[in-house]
C-alpha cells in the first residue's frame, strides 16, 4: 500500500514536470527515444576503431526493444552514447543525433545531461557485483539515489531503500538493508541494481545484458521482474543481449546489430519465423534445439570483423553463404521488407542485398 502511494505521488510529479517544461520541451508525439544515424569511434593513437556506424532505432514508452548482437557489434557502445557515459577520450561520437522526449541530448551541456541520468533514464549493468560499491551497504547505495537527486534526509532515504527492496522482492528487506553487496546472491544483487535504476521511476531503462551473469533459473525470475516493473511504470526498455532465448518472452521488437550497424529490425515473433538477413538466420540456426539432439551444433563460420578494418561492402560478406560480388562492393542499406506480393511488413527492415531470397527462400 505504501508503494501505491509512492506511485501516485511520482505520477503527480511527472505531470507537473511535463507541464512546466511544456513550452520548449518534450514533444509528446515523438517516440520516447530516437537514435538517428549514430556514429561512434574510438581513437587510440593513429588507430581508429569504428564501433558504431550509423545506428538508428527508436523506443516508445512501454515498449521493449531488444538489441541483439555478438561482442563488439556496438550494442553496448550505442547504449553508453545514449546514457552519455562513453569514455571520452578515446571514445567520440562522430555523427548522428539522439532525441529523448523530443529533445536532442547530444548537444546538451553536461550538467543538464547528468540530471537526466537516474531521474529520466537509467541503466542496469551486466555484473551486479562489480557494479555495486563494495564498501557501502546496499541500503545506503539505494538511498543515495534519493539523497543525491531529491535531497532527502538519511533516514527518509533508508525508508525508501527498504521500500524499493520490497518492490523487487528481496526477502527481509528491513533486516538486509544494512548488508553489503557481497552478502547477497547474484540474483538478489541484480534485483538491487534494478531497484536502483527504478528508484526515481525513469522513463527509459537500458539494461545491458542484465541476466548474463546469472544462473539460467534465476535469469527467468529477474527478466520477469524487469518486464513486470516496466509494464507497471510504463517505461521504455532497451534490452541489450546476445541471448536470443531471453529476448523472445519480453521484447516487442528486435534490432540485430553486426559490426556497428543494424542489419535487421523486426517485431520479435516474426524474426524467429522468417529472418530476413543471413546473419540473423545464422544466429537462429545456432540455437541448440531439443528435437535435434545428437546433431552437431550449427555455427556461423569465420570470426566477427576487426573493427579497425571492416570489410568493404557488407561487413558480413566474408562469412555469408549468399555473398556475391555486389556484397563486396556496396554497403547494403536497411530497407523495408515486404511480402512476395509487395505488401509492406510493418516494422521490418533488412540490410541485405538479398533479403528477398533470404526471407522468401
Amino acid at each position, binding site marked *: 500500500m505504501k508503494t501505491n502511494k509512492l506511485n501516485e505521488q511520482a505520477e503527480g510529479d511527472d505531470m507537473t514536470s511535463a507541464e512546466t517544461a511544456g513550452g520548449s520541451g518534450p514533444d509528446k508525439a515523438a517516440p520516447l527515444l530516437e537514435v538517428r544515424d549514430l556514429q561512434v569511434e574510438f581513437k587510440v593513437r593513429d588507430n581508429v576503431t569504428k564501433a558504431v556506424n550509423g545506428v538508428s532505432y527508436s523506443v516508445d514508452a512501454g515498449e521493449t526493444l531488444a538489441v541483439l548482437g555478438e561482442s563488439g557489434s556496438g550494442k553496448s557502445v550505442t547504449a553508453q552514447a545514449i546514457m552519455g557515459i562513453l569514455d571520452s577520450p578515446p571514445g567520440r561520437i562522430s555523427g548522428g543525433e539522439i532525441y529523448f522526449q523530443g529533445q536532442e541530448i547530444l548537444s546538451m551541456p553536461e550538467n543538464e545531461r*547528468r540530471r537526466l541520468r537516474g531521474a529520466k533514464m537509467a541503466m542496469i549493468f551486466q555484473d551486479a557485483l562489480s*557494479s555495486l560499491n563494495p564498501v557501502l551497504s546496499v541500503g545506503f547505495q539505494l538511498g*543515495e539515489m534519493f539523497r543525491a537527486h531529491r535531497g532527502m534526509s538519511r533516514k527518509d532515504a533508508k525508508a525508501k531503500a527498504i521500500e524499493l527492496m520490497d518492490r523487487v522482492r528481496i526477502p527481509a528487506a528491513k*533486516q538486509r538493508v544494512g548488508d553489503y553487496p557481497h552478502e547477497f546472491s547474484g540474483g538478489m544483487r541484480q534485483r538491487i541494481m534494478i531497484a536502483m535504476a527504478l528508484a526515481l521511476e525513469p522513463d527509459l531503462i537500458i539494461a545491458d545484458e542484465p541476466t548474463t551473469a546469472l544462473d539460467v533459473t534465476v535469469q527467468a525470475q529477474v527478466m520477469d521482474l524487469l518486464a513486470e516493473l516496466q509494464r507497471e511504470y510504463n517505461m521504455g526498455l532497451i534490452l541489450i543481449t546476445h541471448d536470443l532465448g531471453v529476448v523472445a518472452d519480453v521484447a516487442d521488437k528486435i534490432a540485430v546489430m553486426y559490426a556497428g550497424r543494424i542489419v535487421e529490425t523486426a517485431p520479435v515473433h516474426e524474426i524467429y519465423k522468417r529472418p530476413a538477413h543471413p546473419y540473423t538466420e545464422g544466429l537462429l540456426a545456432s540455437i541448440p534445439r531439443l528435437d535435434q539432439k545428437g546433431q552437431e551444433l550449427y555455427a556461423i563460420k569465420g570470426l566477427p570483423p576487426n573493427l579497425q578494418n571492416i570489410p568493404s561492402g557488407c561487413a558480413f560478406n566474408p562469412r555469408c553463404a549468399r555473398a556475391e560480388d555486389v556484397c563486396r562492393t556496396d554497403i547494403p542499406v536497411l530497407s523495408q521488407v515486404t511480402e512476395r506480393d509487395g505488401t509492406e511488413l510493418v516494422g521490418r527492415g533488412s540490410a541485405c542485398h538479398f533479403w528477398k531470397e533470404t526471407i522468401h527462400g
Partner: protein
Amino acid sequence: MTELVTGKEGPAAAGPTAEQQGAEPTVVRVSQWSDIRARFFANKLAVLGLFILVVLVIVAVFAPLLAPFDPLKQDLANTLQAPGGDHLLGTDSLGRDQLSRLIYGSRIAMIVGMASILVACTIGIVLGALAGYFGRLIDSVIMRVADVFFAFPLLIGAIVVILLMGRGVLPVVLSLGIFSWATFARLLRSQILSVREMDYVHAARALGASQFRTIRRHILPNSLTAVLVYATSNVGIAIVAEASLSYLGVGVPPEVAEWGNMIAAGRDFMGVKDFMWMYPSLAIVVTALGFVLLGNGLRDALDPKLR
C-alpha cells in the same frame, strides 16, 4: 551501528523468510569490520605493534604523573650519574633525570610523528585525487610538482624550511609534512586510476551521480586503504626524521625533552656514558617498529589478498 541492529534482529526475522523463499539460506551476518578486526587480532606482530603504541600513548598522555622528576630541572651536583638509585636511567651532563626526559620525549615524538603525516596525507590525498580523477593537464602538473619534491632528500628539504621558519614544533611538523606528501599523492593517484575504471563507478555515473559525489562516495573510499596503511607505517619514519632533525640541531630547541636532543647530548660521552644515547635510541627504534608493525597488520587485515 547498522550491522549491530541487523545482527540482533537477523536470526528472528530471517528464519521464516528463508523458509518462504527456499532459495536464500539464512546468512550468518559478519560485517566487514568484524571480519577485519578478527584478521587483525589473529596477527601476533600486529597486536604487538598495537600494544607498543598503546603503551606509548599512555606514557605520553600521563607523562606528568609517570615522570619521577621535572625533565627540565637541572641538578648540577648530580651530573652524569649512571643508571640506578634515584635516577633509574641516570642523569645527563646538567643533572637532568634521563627517565623523565625520555617519558616527556614520547610526547614530542607522537605529536610530531602523527601531525606531520597528517599534513602530508592531507596534501597528498587532495592533490593525488585531483591528478588521478581528472588526469590530463592537472595530472601532469601535479605529478611534475610531486617529482620536484621527490628530488629533495627529506632531511635536506626539511632543514631548508626550518631555516626559513625558525626552530620549533610547528616548523618541524610542516617541513616534514611538505616533503612527504608526494608519495601519498602518487600512491593515491595510482589507486584511483584503477578504481575509477571499476563498473560501480560507471554505474554511479549512469545513475546520475555528480563528479564530486562519485569521487567522494565511490572512488576515495575504495582507494584510501593503501594510503591509510602507508600513512601508519610512515609515522614511524617521520618520528625517526624528527629525532634526526633535533639531533642535527635544527629540530625542537635543545633544552626540550626530546629523544633526538638526548642522543645529541650523549654524543660527547660516547664510549664513556653510553646509557645517555642508548635509551633514547632504543625508544626511537621501538616506537618506529610499533608503527611499522601496526601498518603491516592493517594492510593484511584490510586486504587479505595482498599477503
